[in-house]
């Protein structure tokens, strides 16, 4: 019997986010909110562990009240319990303050395994998972692509590295962040969709998790965003002309000129 906690984040679909070049602000109007795609894989991993060992999957998210819809989606996939960590004071949190807040929420819960996506697609920091593990004083393994074995008090997984992978063992409890290779998230079942409609969302505010005000939200965030701007794309392109053969010849000539070819 495993108690598994999955941390998810509701994010804007980044493929739709643009910057307004005149005002230098984010254009988020009409951008749909989704569960961070990596977190879907974390949830799927949790559900598979539950199917194997029995136990309970609890999904938590820190966010504004509308993040409730992400939690309902998690229930539709099969989560047993969901919690919304929400308070006005949490607004503007950077990764430090977010991790602290999640830690305070998790601290009082039972857990053997905590799962997170490797990063969120809006901030792309990949920092909250490892930071939560540090706050909880438990080990973590990042970039998990496969769970090889799960036994009493021990787990063995494959961790993706730059040039291959490591097989890593850890004692439990452990926090893991997962990459997309680990599984294919399931679709919600009809029964799940019904459950999602009826699900009771437990809401927890700052006092419920016993957090200190100076450590949450903007106040608890060591980093600040000074400004945002549109990225510059270089455009020094040269379209090659002629038949395919002439273009290939021209390309080889250019490469040779740049000393890019093996001799």
């Amino acid at each position, binding site marked *: 019997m495993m108690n598994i906690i999955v941390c998810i984040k509701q994010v804007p679909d980044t493929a739709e986010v643009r910057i307004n070049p005149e005002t230098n602000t984010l254009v988020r109007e009409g951008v749909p909110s989704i569960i961070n795609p990596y977190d879907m894989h974390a949830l799927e991993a949790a559900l598979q562990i539950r199917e194997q060992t029995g136990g309970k999957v609890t999904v938590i998210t820190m966010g504004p009240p509308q993040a409730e819809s992400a939690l309902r989606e998690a229930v539709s996939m099969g989560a047993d319990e969901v919690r919304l960590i929400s308070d006005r004071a949490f607004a503007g949190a950077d990764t430090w303050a977010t991790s602290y807040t999640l830690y305070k929420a998790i601290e009082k819960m039972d857990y053997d395994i905590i799962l997170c996506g490797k990063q969120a697609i809006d901030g792309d920091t990949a920092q909250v998972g490892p930071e939560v593990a540090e706050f909880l004083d438990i080990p973590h393994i990042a970039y998990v692509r496969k769970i090889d074995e799960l036994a009493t008090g021990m787990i063995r997984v494959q961790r993706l590295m730059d040039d291959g992978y*490591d097989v890593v063992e850890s004692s439990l409890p452990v926090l893991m962040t997962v990459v997309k290779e680990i599984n294919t998230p399931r679709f919600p079942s009809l029964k799940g969709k019904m459950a999602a409609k009826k699900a009771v969302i437990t809401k927890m505010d700052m006092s419920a998790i016993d957090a200190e005000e100076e450590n949450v939200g903007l106040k608890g965030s060591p980093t600040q965003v*000074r400004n945002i701007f549109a990225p510059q794309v270089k455009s020094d392109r040269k379209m*090659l002309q002629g038949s395919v053969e002439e273009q290939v010849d021209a390309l080889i000539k250019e490469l040779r000129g740049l000393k890019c070819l093996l001799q």
Partner: protein
Amino acid sequence: MLITINAEKCTGCRECIESCPYTSIEIKGGKAVINEYCQFCRTCLSVCPEGAIVEIAEEGDKQKADLSAYRGVWVFAEQRDRRIASVAYELLGAGRRLADELKTELAAVLFGADGDAARELISWGADKVYHCGDPIFEKFNDEPYAKMLTALIRDYKPEIVLAGATPLGRSFIPRVAARLKTGLTADCTALEIDKDTGNLLQIRPAFGGNIMATILCPDNRPQIATVRPRVMKRIEVDHGRKGEVVPVNAVNLTCRTKVIETLKETSDCMVNLQEAEIIVSGGRGMSNSKGFAMLEELAVLLGGSVGASRGAVDEGWIPYLHQVGQTGKTVCPKVYIACGISGAVQHLVGMQSSDIIIAINKNPEAPIFNAATYGIVGDVNEVIPLLIKKLKEGRQ
């Protein structure tokens, strides 16, 4: 907030020393004193039989004054298999520039490897190298790496710490930032010093590369950033550079994870895309895995590696390790050849800083051409075999 011990009341009974979970109380001159490891957990307050330990509020300007205690720029130099990762040399280049601007010293931190490797870091710009050669660092486990770096930062108080935005750096550095309660900015692509305040301006892409953001960490130290590989420039190596290797000892490093084995992905061409000078990359336009066999042949001919767009990886034509882009690797080779890749922004952010980009695509409107140095409008199944043939002929 600050916790201090009233020396007049303290009898040196050592009760508080036993109680402290962070070993932050020591006896000096017969009296207990609290050192910088204090985490303000307040455990000791109720333990003291004399009531000598008190909590006092800090003044508003106290924190500012504390920041000046932090001096120097540090680079965490990662090694794998006792070999220093190329990103470490790039960070030394960036760190050298920042340290010179701040008129301070540049130090490298090396865990594992040997003294020769440590001295090599001096040739690439470090004034000092803190080296811990303990065997515990041979394989990468987050906890000892994080504990050791945290302890060194507490001892030496650098103002800036840079590490590579590699799987290793991005995994353990967050633990250090969490423990030190300081800011950490992920995956920076540019670093500058704010002329007025001396703060580090940390520039990074966000929202899938659709925007760039400048991040500051004004009131906490050190300012920690992970930096994207292949973005910063190395300085000229100088084997005559003078510097000092400071050996440091590992203390109390516990570890609850264990690396059982390390497996390399094997292939005829290099898999580590971030080290490759030439990358031949394929997208959905390659049609199938046979298309990728063709790209591999071209990559071997050019002495390069094979990359892929997310589309091709999702189709199962090539493993995820080869994926370039927002959800894969960021690469910056001398030459990037994009074959049958349309060029979605998520792919572009992973390769647009390559020196030369060659795009081959049958759709002249494909956005990849906007990022390309050279463009060929044509069918990859026609262009690439011809390119292979001509390169082979050129060899003979």
